[in-house]
């Protein structure tokens, strides 16, 4: 496969791209020029301003098409690839039973003022999602789903009470970076409440997270759009059992 590619409109290498945005300007030639300036800064060259519509007094919406001059360098793409094997429920149960020799304890919640439970329920509840059963279905996992709008202190307390091996937190509302603030608050609270070796594995999930931000947010793993329960279960087994040695090392360092 080539390592340098460009967007494709209808011909290889044409770089064709569509952009839309609003500028806080009434619609006139100058505003169109401003929109084209921005398109140029974004790398569209040449750019066609194909639609402009004034909204109210002082805003104009633009649609621009054009060829973007940037190259996509595939060898420099950074992603969180799944670095653990995808197990079946049976395999997960077997590993937990044979290696951990007790039930693996999971506490889940939707924290802060966020009340979107459908995502965390999809991961935890029996019903699951996309044809996969949720973690409750796994015989060797003990799941406590605290539900929505749980405060961080409540969550820490529950994690302690349940001797949680892993804490799963969902965040769906992202306006003003609510999800990032809440996650940071949560991970800080766990760091404060528990010594590193007693701290549960911290996992957050939600449709708008950047999976690369684990370090910045102080969590062990981030799951994004379209996560399935099996992926999470497999990761739990990997991080808490199969790969425990490495984890210990990392913590010590």
């Amino acid at each position, binding site marked *: 496969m080539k390592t340098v590619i460009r967007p494709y409109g209808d011909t290889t290498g044409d770089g064709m791209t569509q952009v839309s*945005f609003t500028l806080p300007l009434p619609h006139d030639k100058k505003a169109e020029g401003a929109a084209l300036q921005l398109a140029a800064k974004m790398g569209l060259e040449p750019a066609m301003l194909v639609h402009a519509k004034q909204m109210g007094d002082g805003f104009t919406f633009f649609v621009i098409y054009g060829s973007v001059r940037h190259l996509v360098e595939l060898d420099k793409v950074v992603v969180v690839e799944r670095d653990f094997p995808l197990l079946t429920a049976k395999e997960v149960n077997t590993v937990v039973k044979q290696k951990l020799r007790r039930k693996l304890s999971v506490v889940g919640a939707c924290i802060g003022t966020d009340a979107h439970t459908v995502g965390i329920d999809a991961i935890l509840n029996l019903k699951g999602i996309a044809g996969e059963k949720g973690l409750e279905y796994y015989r060797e996992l003990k799941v406590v789903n605290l539900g929505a709008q749980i405060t961080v202190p409540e969550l820490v307390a529950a994690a302690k009470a349940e001797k949680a091996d892993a804490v799963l937190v969902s965040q769906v509302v992202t306006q*003003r970076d609510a999800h990032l603030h809440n996650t940071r608050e949560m991970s800080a609270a766990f760091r404060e409440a528990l010594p590193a070796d007693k701290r549960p594995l911290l996992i957050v999930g939600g449709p708008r997270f950047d999976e690369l931000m684990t370090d910045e947010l102080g969590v062990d793993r981030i799951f994004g759009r379209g996560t399935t329960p099996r992926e999470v279960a497999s990761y739990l087994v990997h991080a808490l059992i199969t790969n425990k040695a490495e984890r210990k090392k990392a913590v010590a360092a």
Partner: protein
Amino acid sequence: MSSNKLGLDPALVHRARALAAKAGRPVVDMARSHTTVSVERAVLRLSGVTGADPDGIPWVNRLVDAVRNDVGLGHGVALPVFHALAEHGLEPTGAELTLLAQKAAAGSVRFDLPTGKAVTAAKKASRRQVAAGIKLIDRNRADRDKMIKRYGDPKQRPWIYLIVATGDIYEDIPQAQAAARAGADVIAVIRSTGQSLLDYVPEGATREGFAGTYATQENFRLMRAALDESSRELGRYVRLTNYASGLCMPEIATLAGLQRLDMMLNDSMYGILFRDINPIRTFVDQRFSRQIHARAGIIINTGEDNYLTTADAVEAAHTVTVSQLLNEYFAHEAGLADWQLGLGHAFEINPELPESFRLELAHALLARELFPDAPLKWMPPTKHMTGDVFRGNLLDGFFNLVGALTGQGILLVGMMTEAVVTPWLSDRDIALQNVRYVLGAAGNLHEDFVPAPDGFIQRRAHQVLDEAIDLLEKIEDDTLLNAIADGTFGIMKRPAHRGKGLDGVAKHDDGYYNPATEILETPGKEQQ
């Protein structure tokens, strides 16, 4: 539009309504024999208590807490408060009541239940004072009527309802005005995510909500004033909506009446199901808040649409119908007229499902024909919206078309970015353009829409009604509270004695007195 395109059997419809009344009655009885901190705070707000302590806790909260500490809530706050007022030589005015609250907070007032003549005096004083508050609400209603007369109602049905949700009232205002100019008939200011679980109403103009702006009296005032300006500019009365649901339902309802809001989200079960608020607390609060809305001429919007975000829109279609019937019963009981019932339902069927559009038509038409005189609030697709905004705008168009074909009263405008962000200015503009196209191009297509006799649409509607009746029978048998506990609505299981805010509920003691309820339940005298 009051047609009979579905060939519903009137006897069946009557039976469904009767069952809903039977199922709802015990809950009403419960609501009539209990009060809550928020109901009592609403009474104080009607009496003119305003403002908050330096921590932002409203004086109504401090006062109710103090009364409760001293004598409990079982008699209501009116008697102990107005009794204390008299005892301390204060005048029965809002200002002096607020002073009393401050003193109480400082610990310099103790409350007692009056006895003998003092009871009559406290009752009279409190009733007079609350009546003054209700008069403000009445005046707002009259003002609204006048403005509608002057500026006119929207030319078309459905009314076009748009959401504003920046979190900052000062960003909300220009956006709301722009939306009105672009064609919105109703502006809803979405609330910050945390607010419904706050057991107090924040104060003042606010700028820091998350995914919504705090509902405060001042924000209400600012936005209503801005929309009055827009109404003048546009020659069309632009309505304002906010959310009553939550732990402060009665108070927010009251503030809405005091600031001339025009519609309020007010559902009998939303708080229970989607905010895990205690069911008893909710039902008690709900009844009072609806009495206020009835008086204020406010149209309520119920929340059945939400069920379809957690449950499947086809499987659970009948739960929407059941809930609408219950909401209707509770609303009538609280004094709301049919024109005030913006019963909710939604376009939430998986668009991949064959015949999904015709199923939507069946459901929407069923609601329309069951509640011919209610405006009905038609909610756009949310659950099956994705980041594919091009597809999103298309689905919204078909949603709009169902609205037009089935004569919905209030069309909540769908946003192509539903799965992405709270609406941007441009999203709203694109969405309104969508609505305008559909209503302009196909607004009268209902004349040519005739569900085939015994065809797919009719059969589906009949099936949903049958399922609704079956479910109502079960509920009547087993009680509504148990049904809620079992996850009947939105697959949310909410036992009657769990959930937030139960500690704010009190059973009426003998001699419970609430001047607001008294006035609201015997209309005529104060009402002009």
